[in-house]
């Protein structure tokens, strides 16, 4: 059930009708949210719904045990148990095929044949998100940041909260879990914000991302174009993935706000960043902060000298790349951005003078978009082919059509975000006077309706 489908609209309308009268009772509301979330997730796959309930329930029990056990050793053992369970399941579904393929390649390099068959595993939708959310919860209980949740329904509602279940934001327990313990008021400002988030989120997904996709696919679906065209297609992809993912996050936040909940903002105008560190503070914020808090800092962060800091940065970014999927392009993408972060860190450590706004922005975007090229490439062969100029350097005669089409879908985004950036206010449309707001919202709504597809098109991050 995709947000951008008629089925979801009907589902949410019915859910909301039941939610409004029940919201005053915390227990009934949570039960309804859980039921809605189970239906929502079950619409993809009932067996995988069982898997989600199983892993979340195990974490519920393990967190309770961690809080009761006094011995540090046992507590650590329970934490490792939770990590092994979650990462084991994640690893099996996400990386088993890739690992076997690597093993097979390795053996064939030594002229040996692998007896293990390479197989494809169907990835449960949203597994990377809810597993990380669940791990974060157990970690936080282990570190004593939050008490364990004793109500199974409340905990399951927190893990499976349908607005952010399948593609985040990866919520932190201290932020979201307490909201399931109190009555949430649906406020007028909250509704105003929700309407803007929903309209803008749907616009970014249905109008921008879905229409940019064919342009990107046209180029990346082939292997022998000029690198210049891949550069243009990479820019288009950078916009597409941003519109797709931030669109999803905005819709998720809008839906949560309509229910009276607050979930974190996953994007904060990332393409206005002036260095990579800032970029990661603005792009997929919930994931980058998750890696910072649960991986980078436990590895030592920047407290163990320059060399170790650089190693940590590289390691975390390679793992972040792998989090996106089992494939060499993702590893390369993570390593590339990790290298960028290392250079950024060394630059700061050496107290070199900062570049001006425009040069630093340009260099940052160059690194980010080169990263997008690696991310979007279908294979290492494609990257190699493009970099070796196998497609020549001549641009096809239809390049201008490509640019024109991309511009048509990029300009509204750039305009709105530039105003958001200049005003330092991402909610400026909410504060517009009545008539301009009506015209603006009406135009967005009409474009969403015009490009709406009954069944919707999947979000890119669903595959991660």
């Amino acid at each position: 059930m995709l947000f951008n489908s008629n089925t979801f609209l009907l589902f949410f309308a019915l859910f909301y009708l039941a939610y409004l009268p029940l919201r005053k009772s915390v227990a009934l509301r949570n039960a309804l949210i859980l039921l809605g979330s189970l239906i929502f997730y079950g619409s993809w796959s009932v067996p995988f719904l069982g898997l989600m309930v199983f892993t979340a329930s195990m974490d519920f029990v393990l967190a309770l045990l961690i809080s009761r056990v006094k011995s540090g050793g046992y507590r650590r053992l329970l934490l490792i148990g939770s990590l092994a369970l979650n990462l084991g399941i994640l690893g099996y579904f996400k990386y088993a095929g890739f690992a076997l393929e690597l093993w097979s390649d390795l053996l064939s390099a030594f002229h040996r044949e692998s007896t293990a068959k390479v197989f494809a595993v169907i990835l449960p939708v949203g597994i990377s998100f809810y597993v990380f959310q669940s791990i974060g919860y157990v970690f936080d209980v282990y570190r004593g940041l939050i008490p364990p949740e004793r109500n199974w329904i409340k905990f399951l509602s927190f893990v499976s909260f349908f607005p952010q279940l399948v593609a985040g934001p990866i919520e932190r327990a201290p932020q979201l879990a307490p909201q399931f313990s109190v009555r949430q008021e649906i406020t007028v400002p909250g509704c105003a914000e929700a309407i803007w988030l929903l309209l803008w989120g749907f616009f970014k997904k249905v109008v921008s991302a879905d229409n940019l996709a064919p342009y990107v696919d046209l180029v990346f679906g082939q292997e022998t174009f000029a690198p210049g065209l891949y550069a243009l297609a990479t820019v288009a992809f950078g916009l597409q993935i941003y519109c797709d993912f931030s669109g999803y996050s905005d819709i998720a936040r809008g839906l949560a706000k309509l229910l009276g909940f607050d979930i974190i903002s996953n994007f904060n105008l990332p393409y206005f960043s002036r260095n990579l560190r800032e970029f990661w503070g603005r792009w997929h914020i919930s994931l980058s902060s998750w890696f910072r808090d649960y991986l980078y800092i436990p590895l030592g962060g920047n407290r163990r000298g320059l060399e170790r800091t650089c190693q940590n940065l590289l390691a975390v970014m390679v793992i972040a790349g792998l989090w996106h999927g089992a494939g060499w392009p993702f590893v390369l993408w993570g390593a590339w951005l990790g290298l960028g972060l290392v250079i950024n860190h060394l630059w700061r450590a050496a107290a070199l003078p900062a570049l001006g706004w425009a040069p630093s922005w340009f260099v940052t975007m160059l690194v980010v978009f080169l990263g997008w090229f690696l991310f979007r490439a279908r294979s290492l062969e494609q990257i190699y082919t493009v970099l070796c100029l196998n497609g020549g350097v001549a641009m096809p005669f239809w390049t201008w059509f490509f640019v024109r089409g991309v511009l048509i879908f990029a300009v509204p985004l750039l305009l709105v975000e530039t105003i958001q950036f200049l005003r330092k206010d991402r909610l400026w449309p909410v504060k517009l006077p009545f008539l301009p707001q009506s015209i603006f919202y009406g135009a967005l709504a009409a474009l969403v309706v015009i490009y709406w597809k009954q069944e919707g098109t999947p979000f890119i991050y669903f595959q991660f």
Partner: protein
Amino acid sequence: MRPRFTQRFAQARPLARVFAPPLLGFLLVVVLGKAIEWTGHIPARRGFGIEDVILQHQRAASSEASNANLLFVGDSTCLMNLDLSAVPAAGSGIQPLNLGMLSMLPLPSFAELVAEFAQRNPGRPAYVVLLISPGMVEQEPVALSPASSSSAPPRTSFLEIAGLRRLRDLIQGSLPVALPGRYGRFYGFDLGLDQFMRQHQGSAIDPGELSRTSKRPHPIEIKEAFREECAAFRAKLPQHCRLLVGLAPVPREESGGDFPLHHKQLTSELGTLLGTEQALQLPASYPALLFASSTHLKAQARAAYTRQVWKAVLKAVRGSGSGTVPDVPGSEQK
């Protein structure tokens, strides 16, 4: 105590302020869409698939003012196999234009294009050259319409009711739509194909690669339905036009040793059926490596083939050959 009406109204106002703008704004857009619909100032909806672009381009070309006095019409072999930039039209006194369409379209639809052209350009064209693939004479034609394209965005009744379809057409009119597969690689977008055809006097290129060939199991026979179409074609063709007819070549590996003779007989039979002034003597087959598909020549082979067609056309028009036109290497002459 229940709040009084005024109090409840006061409570509802902020909520109305929140929900009214998108609804009112949407209503404004609907009114705008309806207004555009009533004025009828939006051009007809553009198709998005390869077939749509070709159909619409050639229909538009046939209804434009032109100085062309020789029209090539026919199926996709006419569209894809000719490269009119390769022929020395300047000194010949003949201005050619390619209105080749698609396979599977009924033969009379090609004559309709000519009739439309003649109506827009009185006295023209002097000559019509019908070029079709041999296989067309035994196929059942299927009428295509721009709406039949699979790549066209789905039409929904809601858009229709809300008056938004016209707005969508207005937006889509300026948007390049990516073409699939090998056509996407070569032309990029529907607008790219359209531009290419405009720049090449109505011709296009099949960017494919013939991967495998299979021998035809039986000789080609003209079907009864096609015979009827021939009569309808001739009836629709403007009276002042002289008609020449030719058959496209096929991959040599798909035809038997006696195919050149069969090709010649088919051409003659077709000429008789259509009551043409002359049936053109064109190459019957080429090596498969010169083909992009089982019916279309590759870009490299088109120029030489076009010169051969041009030579035959000039010969028919003037009653003598130009004599200096090179052949395609490996072509099998009749």
